């Protein structure tokens, strides 16, 4: 059951009893009605609706979707491709999987509207290798949609046709990076490309203009065309429009996924009211608000932010509205919506060691700082949790992370440096070395 504060657009039918992922069920709930109305309109109008909606990408970077589409090189004479980024691998994030498992036709409808709006004749769904079930469900759904003439050649008698293919990844986090994904889709190692010159909108898949959008983003496109861009823009808060799904995991009473209007709920409301607060006898210690790459927030810290009129306001962690801009102003990000909560039982060195191990394992190895730095950080924190901490490890960790961030080919550099930078800066006491620096509760674990 949705929590009272929720507003569900994308997840309207997720976990709804009796709702099945087949076409018949989707049609019973009004499915493909938006597509039917969309193909009767001009493609430019649809692009315009998306622009007006202010929709920002839900994959992690929060890049304005309409603007992304407007960057497409439409004069090249080359085909335009759409790639659906379904490589949901950001630790703490589990929203796209539900869409694909339980409501695949919503995604397909979003894809088809997007393709029609951008004159795309071929779309790929690049699905994470660890989602075999999702790939199966999508394959079946595409076949159904094709049989019902919602995709494939000459859809709904319009003369416009578009095929959708599902491509399974082979299990690498970096394939979620759009240019790495493109390389992988081309059959190569998923080494992210240098930008410039390889901006997907100009030189993407097979060196053709390409849109890469997240699963949730494309589902929003359907709702934007349904409601109208301006009406959609009224949902949420200015510049942070629509709804978004937050995936809460970790030390709360009711972890799970929730969909809210962007910015209409604070972190405190989310954790205390919606998620039921901390586990019995525990206190919240820290929270990562947007997937493991986002910088951590420490309960008890405050942020002084500038208002538009020049005045300032002070926010505690609990007061931060869960929107793109405020989280960015607080030095972290909304990211992919994966909210990871840690209570006072957590040893931050151990938590960071866990994150570092992930990034060291997932670094593609293409460029030097990330390749060498991520493993180095893993080795340092690994040594620290095994009793080998040295007094300068905190400083060293921060320095290594600073040598990575902003100097790599793709955003993985920031992603792997961010946790270390923020953990060390905010929980410096625990990184000073020696057992005394560790909270008592975790000593038993060592």
């Amino acid at each position: 059951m949705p929590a009272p504060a929720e507003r569900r657009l994308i997840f309207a039918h997720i976990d709804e009893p009796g709702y099945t992922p087949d076409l018949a069920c989707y049609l019973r709930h009004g499915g493909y009605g938006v597509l039917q109305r969309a193909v009767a309109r001009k493609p430019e109008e649809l692009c315009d609706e998306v622009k007006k909606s202010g929709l920002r990408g839900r994959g992690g970077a929060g890049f304005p979707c309409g603007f992304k589409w407007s960057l497409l090189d439409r004069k090249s004479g080359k085909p335009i491709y759409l790639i659906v980024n379904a490589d949901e691998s950001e630790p703490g994030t589990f929203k796209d999987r539900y869409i694909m498992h339980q409501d695949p036709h919503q995604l397909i409808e979003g894809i088809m509207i997007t393709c029609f709006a951008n004159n795309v004749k071929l779309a790929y769904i690049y699905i994470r290798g660890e989602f075999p079930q999702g790939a199966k469900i999508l394959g079946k759904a595409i076949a159904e949609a094709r049989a019902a003439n919602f995709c494939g050649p000459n859809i709904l008698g319009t003369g416009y046709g578009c095929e959708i293919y599902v491509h399974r990844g082979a299990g690498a986090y970096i394939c979620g990076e759009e240019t790495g994904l493109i390389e992988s889709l081309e059959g190569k190692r998923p080494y992210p490309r240098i930008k410039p010159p390889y901006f997907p909108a100009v030189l993407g898949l097979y060196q053709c203009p390409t849109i890469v959008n997240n699963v949730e983003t494309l589902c929003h496109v359907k709702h934007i065309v349904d409601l109208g861009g301006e009406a959609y823009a009224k949902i949420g808060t200015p510049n942070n429009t629509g709804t978004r799904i937050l995936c809460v995991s970790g030390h709360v009473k009711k972890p799970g996924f929730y969909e809210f209007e962007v910015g209409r709920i604070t972190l405190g409301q989310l954790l205390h009211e919606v998620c039921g607060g901390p586990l019995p006898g525990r206190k919240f210690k820290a929270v990562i608000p947007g997937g493991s790459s986002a910088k951590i927030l420490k309960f008890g810290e405050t942020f002084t932010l500038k208002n538009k009129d020049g005045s300032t306001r002070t926010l505690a962690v609990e007061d931060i509205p869960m929107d793109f801009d405020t989280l960015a102003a607080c030095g972290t990000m909304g990211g992919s919506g994966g909210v990871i909560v840690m209570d006072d039982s957590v040893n931050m060195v151990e938590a960071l060691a866990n994150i570092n191990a992930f990034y060291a394992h997932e670094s593609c190895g293409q460029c030097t700082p990330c390749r060498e730095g991520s493993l180095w950080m893993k080795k340092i924190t690994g040594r620290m949790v095994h009793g080998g901490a040295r007094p300068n490890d905190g400083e060293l960790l921060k320095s290594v992370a600073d040598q990575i961030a902003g100097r790599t080919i793709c955003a993985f550099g920031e992603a792997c440096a961010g946790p270390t930078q923020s953990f060390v800066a905010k929980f410096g006491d625990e990184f000073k070395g020696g057992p005394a620096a560790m909270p008592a509760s975790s000593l038993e674990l060592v």
Partner: protein
Amino acid sequence: MIAPPKPDLVTINIDGKDIAVPKGTNVLEAARLLGIEIPHYCYHPKLSVVGNCRMCLVEMGLPTVDPGIKAPFGDAATGKPKINWMPRPQIGCATNASLGLHIRTNSPMVRECREGVTEFLLINHPLDCPICDQAGECKLQEFSTSYGRGYSRFVEQKNVKPKRTPLGPRVTLDDERCILCSRCIRFSNEVAKDDVLGFIDRGSYSTLACYPGKKLENNYSLNTVDICPVGALTSTDFRFQMRVWFLKQTAGIDPESSVGANTVIWSREGVIYRITPRRNDEVNDTWMADSGRVLYQQIMAADRLTAPSISGTATATEMALKSAGHLLKAGSVAIVGSGRSSLEEQFLLKKLADALRASTALVSRVGRGDGILISADRNPNVRGALATGLIPALPVQKLTALATAIDSGKVKTVLTVGEDLTAAGLSTAQLAKVAVIYLGPHRNTTSDAAKVVIPTLTVFEKNGTFMNQQFRLQKFAKAVPGPAGVADDLATLGYLVAAVGGPTLSSDLNILWATLAAEVKPLAAITYANLPSTGLLLDPTPWAALPFVERETLHFKPAAVSGAANA
């Protein structure tokens, strides 16, 4: 000469200095023009740009544009445009010159970036410079000294990787030294067209490997060793043989085909240790074939001739020369020259032929062109023989005219320069009918049958020029001395010319070239000393109608006429 198209120049500013460069020039190359070094590992001027080493990070700025007038804001104090510096460093290799681009290569941020990258590259590096072949010519070593911190903060276990993986017959990989720059992969794919290399595994555990079931065994594999910025790819032949700083470098020309790849011959105390390519953007870029790198082995070959002989009996050089002179003076001489001789030798041979009114011929040596740096014509200097007039037409495969002349008794003496006449269609019975004078570096059936044998030098032991398939005149220099007792080839030929009543010609190349320039029309006004190190392109039109055997190679397209004749 056709004037090159005028490039679209833009002025950019690097470290406060303005420079006009063609639009699109990358910042590394532009800085090089100003004498500013931007350190880099993965960038190579002849390969695609991947930007993975991050060593060339620089600060980049562009003029702030006033949206009102759509022109850069001026700084009132200096009158110069106000520069908007980007907060993050950019890689120089992928940053191309555009109007008003500003670059800082030596700011605190840039220095810190280089320090960081250097530290990262060294933490898992074995630091085994004392036993590494690359030491002395290692970019990692040089840049660590110039841009590194000088101490290590790394106290963890280093990654352990295989130290000696044979990637193919000539290349051995030391994986621990590899910095994963991917130059070798790009070279194999883009230049050698043999996409056998790739990385396996991820992150810091990434490893260079051949595709399963494949080997790095193409004829260009050793170029990967040349371009490896560290000691990861090593030449199995050169590995652990010699410290590079002891080696003397001599500019040479690869004699294995008419491409004429430019080379560096590395020697010490009269012994050649390796041959590597020398950059020439008009000929071979920075590459050469593996097959050309082992040719120095012919110096010490078992069949090397080192002593003159008459009728199989060793003799003094003077005696052999005198004997040869007598035979030639007797008349009825045919001369078989060589497409492997230098242009100067061919000129002297032409003088000899003129003095004797002897017939001349050249034996062709045709193989398969590989489309890269080995052409179908395996003689390096057929065009030299054409230019000097030694032969009027292309070399022949079989010396049928000579065979007929021998059979008819018209020819009584044959002088051959290195060529094995039995391989060129003469029978041993025909050889027995004539007196053979053999001038060559190696023994063969003809030298065994020769009346007089005079040993000569290999291409590594003398100076001279070759004219390649483009009609580019290229100098090669003597890298090592010849064997004791073997006279200079020009002196030998000069003696024979004089002995038969021809002119006295100097064996000093500078003096000889004065004669060449005066007498050989295509070479007019050329002086040997002033020949550029990248060669001098001559006008090929006098020979445009000849059906040359070469097909397209790197930087060479056959003329339409000869192409049609080949088809």
